[in-house]
């Protein structure tokens, strides 16, 4: 028997067949529900103005109501502004009058500041090739993120899943899933293309669920959102932003906020002292 026949014969063996466990679909439903709950934090971030691959969530715009549809406003002349090569600290592309980011805290705005900013802001469109199939195999983006998690002391990270293009957005990374102890952790990393409206995160126009603080020992600022009763099932998150606008959001339904924050800050401190090559 030649190799082709041997392989066909071997792979046709009935021993490969597995009985379908009765509760598999239920397990899928449970996992999906858990994922939806834990992603609320990320969704809130997006609503507050975080950009995915250059696509603006319409709810971040003044007067756009609650329509969740995404809107692309106009192409950006500098296509490299999408993804890993997104705008560095300095004048934000599309801002008029020019909005200059001088420190990490400048990536956070009050509602009044945000309204003024968006009055004359032209949102860059994504590059035509910014959308890719997801999940994408591990790569430098998620390697770096995972190293930061490990350096921060997050235990059992080897069980987490990685996606080099979260939701199909190139330059958007995620490390997520159950840690070895079963607790769920999601860490998303994206470039910000414009500042977040921190007052919009609580869904009631106030900033009472949000604090912005400096991450000690780094040039980073952090937004800490404790969750809000206005969004059923919402979970808190910590979003650390570098001066050049790299946002890393930590979210979990089961890990206490104090722990989440400690890991997020430790990871930022490690990345500050271990710059990417």
């Amino acid at each position, binding site marked *: *028997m*030649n*190799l*082709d026949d*041997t*392989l*066909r*014969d*071997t*792979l*046709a*063996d009935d*021993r*490969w*067949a*597995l009985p*379908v*466990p009765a509760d*598999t*679909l239920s*397990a*899928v439903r449970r*996992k*999906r529900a858990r*994922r939806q709950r834990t992603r609320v934090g990320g969704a809130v971030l997006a609503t507050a103005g975080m950009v995915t691959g250059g696509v603006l969530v319409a709810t971040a715009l003044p007067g756009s109501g609650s329509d969740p549809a995404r809107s692309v406003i106009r192409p950006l002349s500098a296509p490299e502004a999408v993804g890993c090569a997104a705008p560095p600290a300095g004048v934000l592309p599309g801002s008029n009058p020019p909005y200059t980011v001088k420190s990490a805290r400048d990536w956070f705005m009050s509602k009044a500041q945000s309204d003024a900013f968006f009055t004359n802001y032209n949102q860059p469109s994504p590059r035509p090739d910014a959308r890719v*199939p*997801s*999940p*994408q*195999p*591990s790569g430098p983006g998620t390697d770096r993120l995972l190293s930061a998690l490990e350096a921060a002391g997050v235990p059992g990270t*080897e*069980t987490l*899943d*990685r996606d080099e293009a979260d939701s199909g957005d190139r330059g958007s990374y995620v490390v997520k899933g159950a840690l070895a102890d079963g607790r769920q952790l999601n860490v998303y990393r994206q470039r910000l293309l414009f500042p977040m409206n921190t007052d919009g995160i609580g869904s009631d126009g106030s900033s009472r669920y949000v604090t912005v603080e400096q991450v000690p020992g780094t040039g980073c600022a952090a937004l800490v959102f404790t969750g809000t009763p206005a969004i059923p099932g919402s979970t808190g998150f910590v979003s650390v932003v570098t001066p050049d606008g790299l946002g890393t959001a930590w979210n979990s339904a089961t890990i206490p906020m104090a722990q989440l924050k400690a890991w997020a800050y430790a990871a930022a401190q490690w990345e500050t002292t271990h710059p990417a090559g």
Partner: protein
Amino acid sequence: MTPGRSTDQDFEQFAASAMPGLLRFGHMLTGDPLRAEELVQQALVSTWARWRRIEHDQPHAYVRRAMVHTHTSWWRRSRHEVPMPAGYDRPAPEGTDLAERDRTVAALRLLPPRQRAVIVLRYYEDLSEADIAQVLGCSPGTVKSQASRALRTLRAALTPDLETTSP
């Protein structure tokens, strides 16, 4: 979407009908029934999240691709260990067809996940290079090179047991 049915119902119908094939595919990739089940569950969760976008466009290919990517990710973290599949852990009597299959299964364990996926899709699912490329999200040329490497490894592992008539 089927008229009168919800998106979720359509997805669950797809998942239920595809489950036996997905579990078998997962078993061939991972070599372990429990990991196969976990792999299928994770891939289905991911597929469900994108169901509206993919339900009319090869959902079978999408879920298999998610399985291969996830398994590759696991494999990188598990120090490349691949367990012996269920039912293959006791050696079959020498000189029987079962013994030859067992040796082939042992050789398959030597392959990295994407090469193993290419072999399974080609020799079990009978997919063309173009279809395998669609499932794996790569070019047909990559499929060809992965298959070539995989067959070279398998041939080297099985040569004493085979009449080497294949290319």
